[in-house]
């Protein structure tokens, strides 16, 4: 009961950060699904071999599960207090960098011609997100996830 209370109504700052991180992960997942649907329906992707579509996701899910099982948590979790100015600047820069990289990656995704490859790539990015969510529960993970989300959105607005 106590646990339920804590997760549904977090009072501590780290609890709030956790919640925001989870929301961000959900948004990224949604955006990736959105990207897959948009590219699939707009670029008229061909399904070359149907059986490949089924197997494509496992390409990245299997390594992900393996890594998750052998790695211990890389970070201690969210801190309670404020971040210093230097940290804020550093992580904002990281976010900007990841945003640019993610815009480029989305551009590469748009040049893919077959559905199974697109699916494999999207699941690969999704695996990275889940990895970050599971193991790097930290401001670093948050900035990377934010960067990925913003990159997809920026590509969709200005380059699609």
């Amino acid at each position: 009961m106590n646990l339920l209370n804590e997760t549904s109504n977090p009072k501590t700052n780290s609890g709030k950060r956790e919640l925001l991180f989870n929301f961000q992960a959900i948004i990224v997942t949604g955006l990736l699904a959105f990207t897959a649907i948009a590219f699939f329906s707009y670029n008229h992707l061909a399904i070359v071999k149907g059986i490949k579509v089924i197997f494509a996701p496992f390409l990245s899910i299997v390594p992900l599960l393996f890594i998750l099982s052998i790695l211990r948590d890389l970070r201690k979790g969210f801190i309670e207090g404020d971040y210093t100015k230097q940290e804020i600047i550093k992580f904002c820069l990281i976010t900007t960098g990841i945003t640019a990289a993610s815009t480029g990656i989305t551009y590469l995704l748009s040049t893919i011609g077959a559905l199974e490859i697109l699916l494999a790539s999207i699941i690969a990015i999704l695996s990275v997100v889940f990895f970050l969510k599971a193991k790097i529960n930290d401001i670093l993970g948050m900035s990377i996830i934010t960067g990925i989300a913003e990159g997809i959105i920026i590509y969709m607005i200005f380059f699609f």
Partner: protein
Amino acid sequence: MLKTKQLNLAFIITLGISFLVFVYLVFLGYEEIRTLKDVIKIVASILFPVPMLFFVRFILIENFIPENSEAYKLENQKPATGLFIITLLSILGVLKFLEYVAHFNLENHLILAHLINSTTISSYVLNYILYNNLKANGVLSGILMALAVHIFF
């Protein structure tokens, strides 16, 4: 009790203006919305501020809700109104300047207008719910009003 009512009214009116701007923008660009691509662009421009705001919120975790007291209001009334007017005029000026000098017409770049609208209103809502900073409120309302005035007139 009355004070919160007044504040809520301002909040709802601002949201209403933003929504009106949005509808008008969609209406303006209706001719251009032909394919799925245009719909995707509009949806993306609306979603644009959300991850960024989450990130900002993540960093600035503390709630700095100042007490919405008479003293706080009196103290911030003038700077907030000043910022509102300054932002309104300067944004309008920049838009007009771009239009006449650089031949850049906002009506032809509706995505940009959508972007400004959604970013401003999301920050406004965030500020309203969590920080209630009257100065920031003034700036954001100024941007929104400038956009509305520019688009409607």
